[in-house]
C-alpha cells in the first residue's frame, strides 16, 4: 500500500543504480540517519551510551568487516578478536607516540595497520579452505594476543600490561578518557559506522564485490573466468581487517578506555562477532547491523526481564540467558538459515504487495 515502487521511475542510469532504488526505502534511510545524528545525541545518557549504543555501533563495524570476509568472499575467519586487538594496540601506540594527531586519523591509521597484518594472515587462504582455514586463522588470534601480552613495547612498559586510553579532544570536546560526554563518543562512533557501511555497501556492489562473490561461490570457476584469486582474497582480508581494526581501536579508546588483551580480545570475541554475522545474515550489510543489535540487546533485555522484573537470582538468570541464547540461535537457524537479513527481505517483499498479495 504505502510501500511500493509503482510510479517510482528512473530516468538515468545513475538513478537506477543508487543504493536504495525504491523511494520509500531511501526516505526511511534518511529518516533513520537524521534521528541517529540529530535526535539521539540530545537524549542520550551514560547508561544508554556505554551499555548499549557504543557496543552496538562498534560491533556493527566489526560485523561489517567480518561479513565482507565471510559473507561476501566466503573465507571463514576466527581471528577477529586478534585483529581487533591489533587495531586497539596500534591506536594506543599512535595515541601515545603522536599526542597531537587527531583521533580521527589515529583510528584510520589503526585500521590501516590492521589491514596490513590481516593481509599477512590472509596469505594461507590461498591454499587452505573451509574449516581448515577457520582453524588456521585461530593462529592469528592466539599469536597476536600472546604478542601483545608478551612484548612490553606494545603496552609502553606499564607495570601490569594494561593499556589505558589517554585523554584526547576533537573540536575542543573530549572524546576519549573519563570526561568524554556520552553524545560525543556516540557521534564519533556513529560517523565511523556510517562511513563503514557506505564504503562496504558500495564496495560489495561494485566490481570488487562481484569478484569476492565469485570466489565465494566457487573459486576455481572464478579463476577460470579471470578473477585473480590472490588479489580478490587478499583484498577481502585487507578491507575486512581494516574495518575490524577500526572497531578494535574504537572499542579500546572510546568504549572501554582500559584494556587487557587476554580478557578483552580473547577467542570469545571472535566467536561473538561470527555469531552476529551469521545470525544477522551472511552477505548483507543490513544483516551486520541486525546481528550486532541482536547480540548486544538480547543479554541486556534478558537481564532486565529476569532480574528487574521477575526478581530471579542473578546466577539463574545468567544460566537461563545461555540456554535462551543457545535455543534462539538454533531456532533461528531452523526457521531461517539465512539470518535476520533474510527475514527483513521477506518482510519487505510482503509489505511491497500488501494488502493485495496477488
Amino acid at each position, binding site marked *: 500500500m504505502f510501500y511500493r515502487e509503482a510510479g517510482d521511475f528512473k530516468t538515468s542510469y545513475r538513478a537506477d543504480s543508487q543504493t536504495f532504488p525504491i523511494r520509500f526505502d531511501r526516505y526511511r534511510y534518511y529518516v533513520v540517519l537524521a534521528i541517529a545524528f540529530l535526535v539521539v545525541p540530545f537524549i542520550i545518557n551514560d547508561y544508554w551510551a556505554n551499555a548499549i549504543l557504543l557496543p552496538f555501533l562498534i560491533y556493527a563495524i566489526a560485523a561489517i568487516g567480518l561479513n565482507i570476509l*565471510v559473507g561476501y568472499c566466503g573465507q*571463514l575467519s576466527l581471528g577477529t578478536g586478534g585483529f581487533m586487538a591489533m587495531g586497539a594496540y596500534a591506536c594506543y601506540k599512535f595515541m601515545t607516540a603522536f599526542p597531537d594527531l587527531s583521533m580521527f586519523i589515529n583510528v584510520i591509521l589503526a585500521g590501516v595497520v590492521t589491514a596490513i597484518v590481516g593481509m599477512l594472515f590472509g596469505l*594461507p587462504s590461498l*591454499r*587452505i*579452505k*573451509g*574449516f*581448515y582455514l577457520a*582453524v*588456521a586463522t*585461530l*593462529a592469528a588470534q*592466539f*599469536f597476536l*594476543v*600472546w604478542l601483545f601480552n*608478551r612484548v612490553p613495547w606494545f603496552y609502553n612498559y606499564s607495570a601490569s600490561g594494561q593499556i589505558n586510553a589517554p585523554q584526547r579532544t576533537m573540536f575542543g570536546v573530549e572524546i576519549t578518557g573519563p570526561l568524554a560526554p556520552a553524545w560525543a563518543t556516540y557521534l564519533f562512533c556513529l560517523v565511523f559506522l556510517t562511513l563503514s557501511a557506505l564504503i562496504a555497501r558500495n564496495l560489495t556492489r561494485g566490481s570488487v564485490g562481484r569478484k569476492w562473490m565469485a570466489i565465494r561461490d*566457487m573459486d*576455481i*570457476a572464478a579463476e*577460470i573466468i579471470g578473477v585473480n584469486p590472490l588479489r580478490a582474497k587478499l583484498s577481502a582480508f585487507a578491507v575486512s581487517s581494516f574495518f575490524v581494526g577500526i572497531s578494535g581501536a574504537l572499542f579500546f579508546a572510546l568504549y572501554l578506555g582500559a584494556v587487557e588483551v587476554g580478557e578483552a580480545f580473547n*577467542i570469545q570475541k571472535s*566467536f561473538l562477532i561470527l*555469531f552476529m554475522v*551469521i545470525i544477522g545474515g*551472511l552477505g548483507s550489510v543490513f544483516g551486520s547491523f541486525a546481528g550486532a543489535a541482536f547480540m548486544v540487546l538480547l543479554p541486556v533485555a534478558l537481564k532486565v526481564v529476569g532480574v528487574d522484573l521477575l526478581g*530471579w*537470582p542473578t*546466577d*539463574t538468570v545468567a*544460566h*537461563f*540467558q*545461555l*540456554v*535462551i*541464547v*543457545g*535455543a*534462539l*540461535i*538454533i531456532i533461528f*537457524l*531452523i526457521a531461517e*538459515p539465512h539470518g535476520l537479513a533474510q527475514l527483513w527481505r521477506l518482510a519487505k517483499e510482503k509489505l511491497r504487495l500488501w494488502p493485495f498479495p496477488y
Partner: protein
Amino acid sequence: MPDQVLFAMEVTLNGLMAGVLYALVALGFVLIFKASGIFNFAQGVMALFAAMTLVGIMEGQVPFSHLINATFGTDIHHFGWQVPALLAIVLTTGVMVVLAWCVQRFVMGHLVNQEPIILFMATIGLAYFLEGVSDLMWGSEIRTLDVGLPQGINETIDAFTYDLFGYGFFIDNLDIVASVIAALLVAGLVVFAQYTKQGRAMRAVADDHQAALSVGISLNFIWVLVWSIAGFVALVAGIMWGTKSGVQFSLSLIALKALPVLMLGGFTSIPGAIVGGLIIGVGEKLFEFLLGGLMGGATENWFAYVLALLFLLVRPQGLFGEKIIERV
C-alpha cells in the same frame, strides 16, 4: 648423556602423553564430522556436561535443585545416596545417548542438507544451550571428580630411568592410564567400525549419504549412533581432564586444544586425530622447552596453531584427510 638431551627426552615423553589427551578430545570431533559433515563445536561443552553429570550422579545430587528450590521454596540438594563410579559412568553414558537422540531429533534433523557453516553455527548454539543447562542442572561450583584413577609420578619409570641415565623421568600415572584408555577406545572403535553391522553402516554413511540411504540404511539412526559415541568419547575426555583439574566451566575450553590437532590430522581421519595429537603434544612441549624461555614462555597456545598452519601449507587437507578434489 648431557642433561639437556635427557630433559628433552623427558619433555618429549610428556608431550606424547599430553598429545594422547588432545587426541581424545579431537576424536569426538572427527567421528561426527566424518559421519555427517558437521563440525561439532559443542564437543568441549559435551565433555563438561558429561563430567558434571557424572559427578552429580555419583554424589546423588538432585538435578535442577536451584530451580526447584527457587520456584517451590523447598530446600533439597541431595538424594542422600552415593553411586559407585562404574554404575555412574554407565548411567552418564545413558544420559549422553538421550542427549544424542535429542540433538538429532530437535536440531540436526531439521537442518539436513544445509550448508556446513549453518550446521557449524547450530552446534555453537547447542554449546551455549548445553552450558546453560549443565549449570542449571548441577550448579556452577567447582567439583571434585574421583573415579579412582591413579595420579602422581610413576615410580617404576622414575626408578628405571634413574638407574639408566642418572636422571629419573617424570611421567604422570594419570597420563599413562589415559593413553591406555585412549588406545583401547580407538581399538574398540576400529573393531566396531570394521566388524559389526552398525559399524559398516556407519562407514557407508560416512562415504556417501545418498548411496547409504539407497541401500536401506537409516541415516537418522546412524547419526544418533554417531552422536552417542561422540558423547561417550566426551565423557572419557571429561573424566581424564576433570580428574586433573576438577570439574568446572573451564573444562569446556579443552576443545580449543583439539582444534590444531584436527587441522593437522585431517577432519575425517581417526588415525589422523591420534597422530596429529601426538605431533602437537610433542611439538608444543619441545618448542616451549627449547625456545619458550627465549620468547618469554607461555607459547604453547599459539604454537600448536602455527605448527598446524605450516603443515597445512604443505598439505591443505591435513595429514590423513581425504584429498580434496575440486571440479567446476
